């Protein structure tokens, strides 16, 4: 009798876990260096979506999850819950960070120049041309550190860019409070910075074709390393506690009438994430543009301009977990569904 089949779960779970670990056993042979540098975009994506800047832990998470990046990001998020909140670091300005790559699609030449840096943009994606090289794969810094302002800075300095009102005294912390509408911009931006790359991409894409009115131009896209400061608990002075690799993107939209004085100015969106993930930063800047400057719209079909749509649907840890929960038993609810279904059938027959 199969009644007992739903019991004995403990042993089944134990064996299933062991089976899973055995299947991925060869991942133990991948060196930490190979993971951190050779698979850096995987690790960076995991750091961003896992909302924890740790190259070491991200590499370990990629290993443990067998390269399932959503799963790896989940490891970092769960680890995060065991860490105490220490406080707020001073604002990190991506326009003063040390540059590895900086491009602008808005101007042919910009202050500081176009710096291609390492990029796969112009790689011909043919597998047969792939060559293995034994060279070390860490990216060296430029001989001289490069610092350049955002390529849109001169427009901002000339007061030609819409400056959004900032009524927030300190940034909202979505890990300590659940944001309620109207959503503070910092809460929306944080949600996106931790958001799943594919989800942000899909929503941003809706606004580029068919369901939005965003015509973005990438003003400044950069891969950079920024120093991170923190207030020393005893001396009260600001000390550098480390460096952070980041991707930042400023995207220009259409000009609009500035609500403050009625003059026409350029709308700009901003995207940011841990590590190197250009697709995510660009998508986020487009979504910021769509939400912060939602004057032109295609009405209710403008999905990406609705913070309610974005804030609840871009978190990979939440959406992956919930989608997978449908694997759990639903015997009771389905049984209840069937009963109502049969009643409806009887109701139809009785007519």
């Amino acid at each position, binding site marked *: 009798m*199969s*009644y007992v089949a*739903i*019991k*004995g*779960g*403990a042993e*089944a*779970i134990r064996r299933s876990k062991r089976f899973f670990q055995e299947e991925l056993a060869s991942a133990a042979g991948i060196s930490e260096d190979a993971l951190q540098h050779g698979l850096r975009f995987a690790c960076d994506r995991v750091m961003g979506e896992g909302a924890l800047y740790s190259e070491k832990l991200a590499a370990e998470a990629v290993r443990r999850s067998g390269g399932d990046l959503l799963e790896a990001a*989940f490891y970092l*998020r*769960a680890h*995060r*819950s*065991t860490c*105490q*909140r220490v406080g707020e670091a001073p604002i990190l300005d991506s326009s003063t960070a040390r540059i590895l790559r900086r491009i602008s699609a808005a101007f042919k030449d910009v202050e500081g120049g176009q710096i291609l840096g390492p990029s796969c943009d112009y790689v011909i994606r043919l597998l047969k041309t792939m060559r293995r090289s034994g060279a070390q794969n860490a990216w060296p810094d430029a001989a001289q550190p490069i610092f350049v302002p955002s390529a849109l800075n001169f427009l901002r300095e000339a007061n030609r860019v819409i400056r959004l009102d900032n009524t927030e005294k300190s940034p909202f912390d*979505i*890990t*300590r*409070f*659940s944001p*309620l*509408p*109207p959503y503070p911009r910092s809460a929306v931006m944080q949600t996106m910075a931790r958001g799943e790359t594919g989800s942000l991409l899909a929503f941003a894409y809706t606004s580029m074709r068919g369901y939005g009115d965003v015509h973005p131009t990438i003003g400044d896209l950069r891969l950079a390393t920024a120093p991170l400061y923190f207030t020393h608990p005893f001396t009260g002075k600001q000390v550098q506690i480390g460096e952070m690799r980041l991707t930042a993107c400023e995207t220009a939209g259409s000009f609009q009438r500035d609500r403050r004085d009625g003059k026409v100015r350029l709308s700009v969106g901003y995207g940011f994430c841990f590590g190197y993930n250009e697709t995510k930063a660009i998508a986020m800047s487009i979504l910021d543009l769509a939400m912060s400057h939602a004057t032109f719209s295609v009405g209710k079909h403008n999905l990406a301009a609705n913070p*309610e749509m974005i804030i609840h649907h871009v978190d990979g*840890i*939440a959406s*992956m*977990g*919930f*989608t*997978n*929960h449908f694997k*759990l*038993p*639903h*015997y*009771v*609810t389905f*049984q*209840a*569904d*069937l*009963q*109502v279904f049969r*009643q*409806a059938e*009887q*109701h*139809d027959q009785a007519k």
Partner: protein
Amino acid sequence: MIRPSEVLFGFLDEDAKKEIRRALLKAVALPGYIVPFASREMPIARGWGTGGLQVSLSIITEKDTLKVIDQGCDGSVNAVNIRDFISSVTGVPETEDTTKASIIQTRHRVPEHQLTEGQIIVYQVPYPEVLDSVEPDTARQKEMHANNDYAKLWVLLYEDTSQFGDSRMASGYPVAVNDHYVMDPSPIPKFDIAKLNNSQALHLFGAGREKRIYAIPPYTKVAPLTFNDRPFQVEQFPGKACERCGCRDVFLDEVHLDDGVHYFCSDTFHCDTVLNTRGEGHAA
């Protein structure tokens, strides 16, 4: 199970527990009202009971006895997993006995045994907001609750009833709590709704992914939304009884096997109790 010394009691740090307890107090003070909370990421996935888990871990003490069920069953895989995790981070004793548990975490069922004073039942909730099916906008939902405006929900119930003879909401049927807030009782069958009304136990609801907590305090009126001329219909199993213990007045699992359809108790502890009682009766 003994808790390893490097693990915090209850896994969560004290700040997180404090925040959740404050949300719980507010929820108890406003029966049926949805309280937002930060909701930490847990080592089990979102949608797998992280809300219920956080509530349980915030209220549990060394003196508690824990029961965890899924679909009414203590042995169901996710129930086992959650129970193992809670006891590994608290060291509290586990039980399958509904009457001996001080905290019962559940998914999709309310036990058949009547809950008593001092017991707390914690529900894992996928969709805390009852208005989601008729109004997705958070701000407007809040306004509708404040104004006791459930017109859209009534219209949905009416449309279903006129087309299909009854609401299509089979589980998680909307209930009015204390004659005010209408809430989603989590996906329990309609069969279990009556157990919420004027219950002696404290009912706590945690939605981890949606970051919401709500509650039904003991001895609170809970009534399903129904039309005056349409009696509330719960799941029925006419002519069927549990093939294991013979019970008729319980929620049954329908099991399809090679030799046809079979029925068994969904609440496995209740089924065991009936069998044991009968066994003792025979022995005497």
